[in-house]
Structure formats: C-alpha cells, structure tokens
C-alpha cells in the first residue's frame, strides 16, 4: 500500500485537524450569532471559513494531501471547474433583484 505508507500516520495531526475544525465552526457560529457583518459580507466570511474547513477535511481526513500529484490535480481541477461553472446563474439572480420582481 505505497500510497498509505509514505506519509506520517501519527494520530496527533488528526486530533489537531479535528480541533481546528471545531474552532472554525465556533468562529462561524459567533459571527452569525452576533450579526457581525451585513449579509453579503457575512456570506463571504462564512464561505471562506467553509472552504478552509473543507480543505482540511479533503487534505487530511480524506488523505488527498498524501496522494500523488496526478490524483490531486485531476480530482480537484475537475470538481472545482464544474462547480465554478454554476456561478453563471448568480448573474440571473442579481438581475431579478435589480428588476424588482416580487
């Protein structure tokens, strides 16, 4: 199992990642609970924190960090590219807001 054997499998790093995920979740809840930002800025802040959390999960818990470069790039470029294409719909959502449609 060369893919599994080449990296450090110490438990400590996983507990550290778990702790970091819990702390980031607490930060998200605190931001929302105290209504720190107005909605659009809040959405940006929460999405940045969520992307950091998902990177930790994919990299460490799902072990993608320890796979070879071909695996990492093929998987991530494909899914991120497809998801980014969906952003095209937001233009239409904003158009509806500007039209004032009820």
């Amino acid at each position, binding site marked *: *199992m*060369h*893919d*599994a054997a080449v990296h450090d*499998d110490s*438990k400590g790093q*996983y*507990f550290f990642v*778990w702790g970091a*995920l*819990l702390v980031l*979740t607490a930060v*998200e*809840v605190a*931001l*929302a*609970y105290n*209504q720190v930002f107005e*909605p659009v800025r*809040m*959405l940006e802040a*929460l*999405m940045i*924190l*969520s992307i950091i*959390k*998902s990177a930790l*999960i*994919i990299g*460490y*818990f*799902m*072990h993608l960090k320890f*796979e*070879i470069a*071909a*695996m990492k790039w*093929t*998987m991530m470029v*494909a*899914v991120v590219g*497809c*998801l980014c294409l*969906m*952003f095209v*719909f*937001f233009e*239409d*959502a*904003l158009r*509806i*807001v500007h039209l004032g449609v009820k």
Partner: protein
Amino acid sequence: MSDVAVQHGVADAYEPSLFGTYSKKVGMWLFLLSDSLTFGALLFAYSYGRISNPDWPTPFHKASITNATIMTGCLLSSSLTMVMGVLAARRGDRSWTRNWILFTMLFGTAFIVLHGMEWSKLIDEGLRLPLFPAAGHEVNAEFRSVTQVVPQFPATFFTLTGMHMLHVTIGVIYLGIVALRRKFLPILAVIWLVGWLVIPKDSVFHYLIHVLLLGLVVAATIIFLKPKDYDAHDVEISGLYWHFVDLVWMFIFPLVYLMSTRITG
C-alpha cells in the same frame, strides 16, 4: 500492492495505475466528484433563491442554531473516529477497527436523530411542503407565513437537508455492513420495524423510515451475492464516503442555518 490490481502472469501487459492507487479508491473518488455536483446544484439553487428574493425568511432562532451546532460537532467527531478506524485497519487491528467504526456510526446516528427532531419541530410549527402529512396543529404564525409567502424556502430547505440526511443514513448502513457484515442485517431490520411502529402516522418519518428497509434489501443483496471479509482498503473507501458527507455539511450549515439566523432575546 496498490498499483497491481490484476495478477495475470504476463509482464508489462498492464500499466500501473495513473493515479498511483488501487482502483476501488479511484472509483469512490469519481463517485464523490459526481455526488459533489449534485449537492453543488442544490446549494447553488438555494443560494439563487436567497439572492433573487429580497424577502427571504430568516426563521432560525437560538434553539435551531444550537441544535445545528451540536449536529456539526457530531459529524466532525465522527470524521475523527473514522480516521482512527482507518488507521487501526492499516495496522491490522480488527477489534479496534470495528470499535472505531461503531463510534462513527454512533455519532452519525446522533446526527440523524437530532436532524429528525429538528425537522419534526419545524414541520409541527408550520414550515412544510404540500406533500407532508397534515399536522394536527400549527402553532407558529411565522412559519406558516414563510410557507405561504416564500414557498421556495421550505422547498429548498427540505430538499437540501433531506438529501444530506439520506446520505448520512446510507453512510451509517454502509459502515454497519463494513464493521459487522451479516450481523448488521437483523439489527437494521429491528431498527426499521421498531421505528415504523413507534413513530406516529402524522409524522413524515413514519414514511421516510422505509429508507432503512430499502437499505436492508440492497445491503442483504450485496452481502449474499458477494460475501467477503472487508479489508483495510474497504475501510478506507468507506471512510472516504463518510468524510464526504461531513464535507457537504460544512457548506449546508453556514448557508442554510447561519445565513438564515435571527437571534432574538
């Protein structure tokens, strides 16, 4: 071992895997990529509705946020126990592999129960889809108003969180089969039967509990058609699925709950 999937005796007839790992893991990754597009579409649909509708409701108060935060903690902790299970499987420690997977299932089940209670509370208070069974009482005028004025909210909320709850349920069944194999089938059958008999008929979960029966049929078919002793690779790919379920929640929680928060009092 990982880059030699077929022992055919003909040197150089097959090239090593492009991705440097065993084919089952690549297959699971490809499935997860396709599934992430499913959830991506649902999350984008929810976000589209939220952006395009200035009157988007913010019905989640302190109790809902607290509940969803505990659910998030359960899923994050289940990911940690799953990683411990994968490490134990690599060491060849079968006993602790099973124990860690059972802990993971426990956290997953806690998530499902908490989510089910949250759904039941919201439905009882009036946030509902037309296809849900009629409730005896609807006490919260705010939720009734949300359902009537912005029907996109309950539609996207129940679709998105329901799809995720279905994935968590499938994950718990999957892990149960990997950990306990055939022994898990009667346990699953009892849970389905008890759940069906205990949950009141006016609850949507009286009908949704049949997902467990469907899972039982599928799991039994797989186990009896291809009985096998699941190895470290099987534990690792079941872990990939479980972490993906956790990953999706990391986007649902802020988008659906935290962005629809109104703290009062």
